[in-house]
């Protein structure tokens, strides 16, 4: 077991370059070459980016490799191919493929930026367009008033660690970055995806979570970094899975489908998944809502006590969604004995959820965090409980904004998958599952994800995120990320960040 003491854990996995040839398909711009081209090769000799290539001996010049093109803004350059083509055969425009990728919440810029971070481990600048989505509200309308000057503190001087147990008793658990991985069940994602997340969690000495589909044996070597989830379906929950876990998470509700149980549609319930869940293969599994043994805070306490008696060393996390009275739920959870209150907001990720639930039931996390934070402060228990936010936190800056609104840290799901090459096509729920081999249980498709490769990619992303938090904190002259908590005065609510870096 790695370092779990107070102080700032100095865990800094090396960031290696982990490229993926598969993710190089997106071209931002399209370069078109008309039939009038005479293959003279002028464009090849001009373009410094290597878009155009003419092979000696070939009759015709090769089609342009527009992934390397910098777009119409190139027109200011003397080497702009379109202006210099003697037959006017070239044109440059926005790529349709780029437009087809992404959506208002996860824009194509954001997906590409996440891939880039997963590949290089290098952070985005604070004004990079990939930091913010285009959904027009919530985190996308909240911006930091970032001071102009680059801070003087180096990342080594800044602590991004948070405590998960803030009570006076019990194991002290400190993670070096204010995030851990959210629950994704075996069934919703492949075992390789789970392994990739567990391996990166081990590297960073943080956690990942089994989700509600049981605890695959492949994860046992990483048990010190794996949270076991007890969800309403109780799939694969056994004494030994509870006893080996450092943290036990009770999932009452999930942000993507508040008020509904987990969904695993029949196609994805393959024999392996069914065995783990002790269910009949190829039947749809809809977990109940709620726990039919919990209809009050008193029942909830009984629930936590039960887990505590099976594994007294484990921390107890309670994952709840964000109803109107989310502050009462949080306070109740704390008094029932929870160490971590994990709020999962309405716009969270999922492997399968009814579309009606995603947008319409329960409030987005941006509203729930300040509500709960203030209530816990007024109740005088804010510093005895760890408040984690999830559900639509896509980037390092989203996490920082959540902390500024009052959370201690965050739980990350979809971003992990995007680091693995998810394009957010949204077809995880049925058929053979994910065509990219991430959220699938298909025995052929799941081989597309290599666990070691994936672990490096996720680890790189965490590295990039940490460096970006350090950049932000350094500018605010903060040495510890906990100093950022509740600092709503550092935020501005606006369509666009008018107070950008350097302005």
């Amino acid at each position, binding site marked *: 077991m790695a370092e779990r003491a107070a102080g700032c854990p100095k865990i800094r996995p090396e960031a290696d370059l982990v490229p993926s040839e598969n993710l190089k398909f997106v071209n931002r711009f399209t370069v078109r070459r008309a039939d009038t081209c005479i293959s003279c090769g002028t464009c090849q000799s001009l373009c410094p980016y290597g878009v155009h290539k003419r092979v000696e001996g070939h009759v015709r010049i090769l089609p342009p490799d527009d992934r390397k093109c910098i777009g119409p803004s190139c027109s200011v350059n003397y080497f702009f191919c379109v202006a210099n083509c003697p037959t006017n055969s070239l044109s440059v425009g926005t790529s349709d*493929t780029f437009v087809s990728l992404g959506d208002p*919440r996860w824009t194509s810029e954001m997906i590409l930026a996440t891939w880039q971070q997963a590949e290089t481990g290098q952070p985005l600048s604070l004004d990079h367009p990939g930091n913010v989505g285009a959904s027009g509200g919530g985190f996308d309308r909240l911006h930091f008033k970032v001071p102009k000057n680059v801070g003087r503190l180096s990342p080594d001087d800044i602590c991004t660690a948070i405590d998960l147990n803030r009570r006076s008793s019990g194991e002290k658990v400190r993670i070096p970055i204010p995030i851990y991985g959210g629950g994704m069940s075996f069934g919703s994602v492949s075992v390789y995806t789970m392994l990739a997340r567990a391996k990166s969690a081990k590297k960073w000495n943080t956690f990942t979570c089994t989700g509600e589909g049981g605890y695959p044996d492949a994860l046992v070597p990483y048990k010190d970094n794996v949270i076991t989830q007890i969800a309403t379906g109780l799939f694969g929950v056994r004494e030994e899975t509870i006893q080996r876990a450092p943290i036990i998470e009770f999932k009452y509700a999930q942000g993507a489908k508040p*008020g509904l149980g987990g969904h695993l549609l029949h196609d994805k319930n393959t024999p392996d998944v069914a065995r783990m869940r002790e269910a009949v293969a190829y039947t749809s599994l809809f977990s109940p809502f709620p726990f039919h043994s919990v209809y009050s805070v008193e029942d909830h306490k009984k629930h936590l006590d039960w887990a505590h008696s099976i594994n007294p060393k484990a921390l107890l996390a309670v994952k709840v969604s964000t109803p*109107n*009275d989310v502050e009462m739920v949080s306070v109740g959870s704390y008094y029932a004995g929870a160490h971590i209150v994990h709020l999962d907001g309405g716009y969270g990720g999922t492997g399968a959820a009814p579309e009606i639930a995603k947008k319409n039931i329960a409030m987005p996390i941006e509203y729930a965090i300040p509500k709960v934070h203030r209530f816990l402060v007024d109740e005088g228990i804010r510093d005895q409980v760890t408040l984690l936010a999830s559900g639509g936190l896509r980037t390092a800056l989203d996490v920082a904004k959540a902390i500024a609104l009052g959370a201690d840290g965050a739980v990350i799901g979809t971003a992990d998958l995007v680091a693995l090459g998810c394009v957010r*096509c949204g077809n995880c729920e049925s058929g053979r599952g994910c065509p990219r081999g991430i959220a699938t249980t298909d025995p052929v498709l799941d081989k597309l994800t290599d666990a070691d490769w994936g672990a490096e990619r996720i680890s790189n992303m965490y590295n990039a995120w940490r460096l970006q938090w350090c950049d932000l904190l350094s500018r605010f002259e903060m040495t510890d990320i906990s100093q950022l908590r509740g600092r709503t005065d550092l935020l501005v609510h606006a369509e666009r960040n008018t107070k950008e870096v350097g302005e």
Partner: protein
Amino acid sequence: MFERYHVPLRTVAGRAAPIPKFVITRADNCVNCGKCEKACIYGVHKRSEQDPRKMAEPINQLCKNCFRCIQDCPQRSLSMSPGSEYNNLGRGVWTSLRVLTMYGEAETGKIPVLGAGYRGLFAGPGYDGMWTDMSEIVRPTRDGIHGREYISTSVDIGRKPGYLRFTSEGKMMTSLQPIIELPIPIVLDVTRLKFMSMSVLEGYAKAAVVLGSLLVVRADTVLPESAKRDSGAVVIAHPEGTDVDSIRLPDETRMAELQYSEDWRKDARAFRTRFPKKILCFRLSASKGVERKVAELAGGGVDVAHILYDEDGLEQGNGARHSKDSLRAIHKSLVAKSVRDEMTIISGGGIAAAEHVPKTVICGADVVALERALMIALECRNHITCSDGSCPIDLKSASADWVEGRVENMVGAWRDQLLEVLGAMGLREVRRLRGEFGRAIFYEDVEREAFSEIEGGAGDG
């Protein structure tokens, strides 16, 4: 014997060509290597049947936007673009996504379930700026999904007495007014639809009977023979200026609609005299001050008010409110006069998605009227103009059976989604959802609560 309400569902395939969300273009430099065929798990890419040396045109409607073929193409010949027909499908609250979702619901009757989280805008005008509540731990819950715990979607149309009065001998003195119990808070209203053919109307009428709902038609609409037999499910809406004495109603008819006018009291009196056992409904277009008119109707003994909004859910005239706000004002004015239970509110217009049903009910309506949604269920392309000759889907040739199946499927899917919302809120019946806006979450309110202390946030100057 007690029977659970059940909407019969069957797959009713669309008649028109499917609309692809994304279009894959294959450039000329394709070398027909077939790697795309291997890459695609949805079967978009196939070899040409005529000439197996060549790749066929991509079957775009099967494409699910995973980019696998584009990524694997060694020639970089493939590119993806958003489908233009899909993008042009939507307008106003009838967005492309909603229209396509309704096509799917009408085809399968199933709740749309997809992977990945929410992908749309954060909030928006009207019902997009509203979230429904859910219950956990500290409040009772209800496991509504797949009927594991029973949730009633029944509502009543008609006047309900607040209490009963008895004589000292125990004989009831209160005279009970007629009531229609609907198993779903949905009626079908075709009065404002532009297109109508005999078979479409027959399909709607059959669907209304099967669903246990009502079909509202104009007085000048010629009903098909089958619908005349089922006239208990038909409600006739009479235009303004109709002489009540000239109205003929079949015995089975349970309710009639009159157009609201300044003379409504006279019309109401005449109707009551002629049809004491039938429910009287006034329909009125919502505009500024509609809450005052509805409160007057309630005070004047009218059973039902059918409020009409435009197809985006807005009132008419200057300063038009969305039905979200308008209905809340109506509900509050009736509550303030202690007559809320004496009047049923039907709200129509702008009901463009399953979530609009519970949201309309939360804002204060008892019953929701489906109008344009009924057309979209039939794959209507949502054009601004509509005429027999230019109908791109040739709706005239649709059979009544097909129409019936599509409508039942869509309403069935919407009811199931209503159950999910009710279950999440922990409610056992939709009657208790009415006017529960204290538990709903409204954009303006939460923005203020959460962000007022942030520079530029709501309430900050």
